[in-house]
């Protein structure tokens, strides 16, 4: 199967990590930035790293942008450039253009000119951090819609020693345990203890809940909140 090809334009902190993660996941990445130093910082791990002005359509075409399936535009500070580049990519015919926005107005413009997806990394991370501070026992929360979410939290003490079925989470709170994470201890080659993490997705209803296990629950936010208040 042909590898999916990506372009990451703008290699600041966000773009750098997008490019790095895509490469780690086995994708081909064309990385573009107008700073030679920044391009050098990714040259070792991306497929191709090119220094050019991405607002220049000719330069983008020369870099081979036409071959990519998805382009990620990670230029936030210079809104004008960000918009111009997204428009150019759409004109060239890139099937999917994902763009980073730094403000609601920026996001709206990107959407209106046809970006396939607009992301607000700072806003999204701020919401996640604030949520985790308000409910410290919540390890991760993924909002599926205004009414539904997926929440990860340590198994409450009263569940320890029961099976998932016996915890009756589904019947009492009408939410579903969709995954479970266990830490499995082992002895490393150097003789020291350590642990690894094992996921069960979905977990068997007969699996025993042990101290330290982490549950991932999906359902209506109000029901998840009600459950977390009680246990």
């Amino acid at each position, binding site marked *: 199967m042909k590898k999916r090809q990506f372009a990451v334009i703008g290699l600041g902190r966000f773009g750098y990590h997008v490019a790095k993660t895509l490469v780690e996941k086995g994708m081909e990445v064309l990385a573009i930035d107008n700073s030679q130093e920044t391009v050098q910082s990714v040259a070792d791990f991306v497929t191709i790293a090119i220094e050019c002005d991405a607002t220049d359509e000719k330069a983008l075409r020369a870099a081979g942008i036409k071959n990519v399936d998805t382009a990620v535009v990670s230029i936030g500070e210079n809104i004008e450039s960000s918009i111009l580049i997204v428009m150019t990519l759409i004109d060239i015919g890139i099937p999917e253009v994902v763009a980073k926005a730094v403000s609601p107005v920026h996001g709206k413009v990107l959407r209106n000119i046809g970006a396939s997806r607009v992301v607000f990394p700072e806003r999204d991370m701020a919401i996640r951090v604030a949520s985790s501070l308000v409910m410290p026992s919540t390890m991760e929360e993924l909002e599926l819609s205004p009414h539904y979410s997926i929440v990860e939290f340590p198994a409450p003490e009263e569940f320890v020693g029961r099976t998932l079925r016996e915890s009756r989470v589904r019947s009492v709170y009408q939410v579903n345990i969709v995954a479970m994470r266990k830490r499995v201890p082992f002895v490393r080659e150097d003789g020291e203890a*350590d642990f690894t993490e094992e996921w069960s997705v979905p977990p068997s209803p007969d699996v025993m809940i042990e101290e*330290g296990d982490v549950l991932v629950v999906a359902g209506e936010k109000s029901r998840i909140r009600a459950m977390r208040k009680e246990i």
Partner: protein
Amino acid sequence: MRKQEQQEKRTVEDLIELGEFYFLNGKLKNALDVLEKARELDPQNIEALYTLGLVHEAKNSFSDARQMYERVLKLAPGHKAAKNHLEKLVGT
């Protein structure tokens, strides 16, 4: 080494071994108890502190785990496992 010191050292080693045994068998509360005793006897014992970090992390007590790993790294800056766990906890 004086006889009492030797005996204390043996006790600490025994306690750590027992703590690791409990940890490896998922008995986190027991592991915590004996490792804390080992730490009382020898507050700078790297193995006790590191294993306590693991137990706290396995119990999802991340702040306590972080403290233990930080102590390990203060005493043994090259402790790779403690460094890896701390980096994961702090998010760096």
